[in-house]
């Protein structure tokens, strides 16, 4: 019994059908509990006031936006090395989810930045990196959509994902470097765990768990759709053959 057994589409469909409702339910539960807890039952921050409530969406979305890309990278590597189709399809399924999380992180960041920094948008290193990350997601999705043959598309997007990861990391450091000259002391960063007191930390933890579970559930759901799409294409092709 190894993990690779689930690379078989049939096995994957069986397992994911049984697991999906639980993951989705747990995700909904965590998100509702975490967000309600965070929104209604936490005090205001002494400096940021009620805007601190945005953290329950902003931080988990930002974390998962990056983790989604890492997951796509791992899935692409598995596809390129071991040629498991399900792996390539999970990478394809994860991309739109990652893009939406990136957009959430950017939108909440802008809404948070407006009252706190006095501007919707600052060319802060983190914001800029996320904008670039969104562009990488867009390119990846566009390449999947543009190539007709599914295996070719999986190969090309896999290579793009690997090269893109290297350049995304490079951009991250380049942006840090570039910003020093512009507004130094841009301590706009959201001082994560270290500075957040327990009152905010526990509901935040629940929200992070909720986002992780939501990501898993959505990827499972979308992968199931992709597998069905493949089977449909195969059936139609077989019909045409006679």
């Amino acid at each position, binding site marked *: 019994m190894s993990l690779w057994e689930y690379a078989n589409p049939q096995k994957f469909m069986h397992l994911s059908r049984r697991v999906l409702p639980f993951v989705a339910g747990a995700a909904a539960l965590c998100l509702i509990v975490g967000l309600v807890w965070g929104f209604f039952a936490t005090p205001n921050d002494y400096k940021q006031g009620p805007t601190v409530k945005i953290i329950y969406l902003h931080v988990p979305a930002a974390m998962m936006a990056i983790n989604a890309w890492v997951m796509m990278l791992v899935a692409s590597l598995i596809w390129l090395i071991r040629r498991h189709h399900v792996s390539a399809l999970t990478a394809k399924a994860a991309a739109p989810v990652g893009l939406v999380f990136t957009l959430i992180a950017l939108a909440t960041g802008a809404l948070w930045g407006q009252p706190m920094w006095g501007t919707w948008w600052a060319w802060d290193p983190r914001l800029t990196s996320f904008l*670039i990350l969104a*562009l*990488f997601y*867009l*390119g990846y999705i*566009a*390449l999947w959509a*543009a*190539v007709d043959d599914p295996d*070719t598309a999986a*190969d*090309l997007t896999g*290579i*793009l994902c*690997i*090269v*893109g990861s290297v*350049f*995304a990391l*490079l*951009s991250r*450091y*380049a*942006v840090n*470097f*570039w910003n020093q*000259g512009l507004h130094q002391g841009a301590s706009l960063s959201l001082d994560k765990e270290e500075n957040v007191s327990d009152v905010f930390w526990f509901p935040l933890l629940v929200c992070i768990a909720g986002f992780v579970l939501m990501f898993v559930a959505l990827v499972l759901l979308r992968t199931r759709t992709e597998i069905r799409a493949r089977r449909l294409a195969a059936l139609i092709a077989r019909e045409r053959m006679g």
Partner: protein
Amino acid sequence: MIALLIRDVRLAVRAGGGFGLGLAFFLLVAVLVPLGVGPDGGTLARIAPGILWVGALLACLLSLDRLFALDYEDGSLDLLVTAPIPLEGVVAVKALAHWMVTGLPLTLVAPVLGVLLNLPAPGYFWLVVSLALGTPALSVIGAFGAALTVGLKRGGLLLSLLVLPLYVPTLIFGAEAVKRGAEGMATGTPLALLAAITAGAAALLPFAAAAAIRINLR
């Protein structure tokens, strides 16, 4: 390999190809920006390094889709894949040829356009140095993007979408070097990082690009 290089350069220069086009585009950017921003010398001097780098980058992007597409259409790419020289080498040579007909002339013309944009005097040397160091990376990264989209019918727009995010680090370090040079500050760090990107891209990306071409021709 050298024959291939000469052939590519000849084709690009002769066939009304991207050679003059990229340069003309670069010139147009340098003319249009002051028209849009206004003739104030101080403002222009401040944005000149960025404009020149963005212009060079876009001019480079303009001719990328011809890099493999023409050879793909007339079938010579298939011959190159089956040729006894490694495909990675072919990609590197084609990127080099692309650089010789776009990056190199852009580098040489840039100081003239710097005058139009009122670039401060100490910036010219660094502008040429940074472009000379950085434009090879643009060509190699572009070759990778062109390899990914070689089989597609409308690859041009997609190519820009794929390649532009990859250009971000090169652009940042390149423009930063010129900006620092123009302000009389030390330029060692961005130039070293720029050179590192060029060296790394030239060493590794031909492999990725060759893999992409093999997949596309499968």
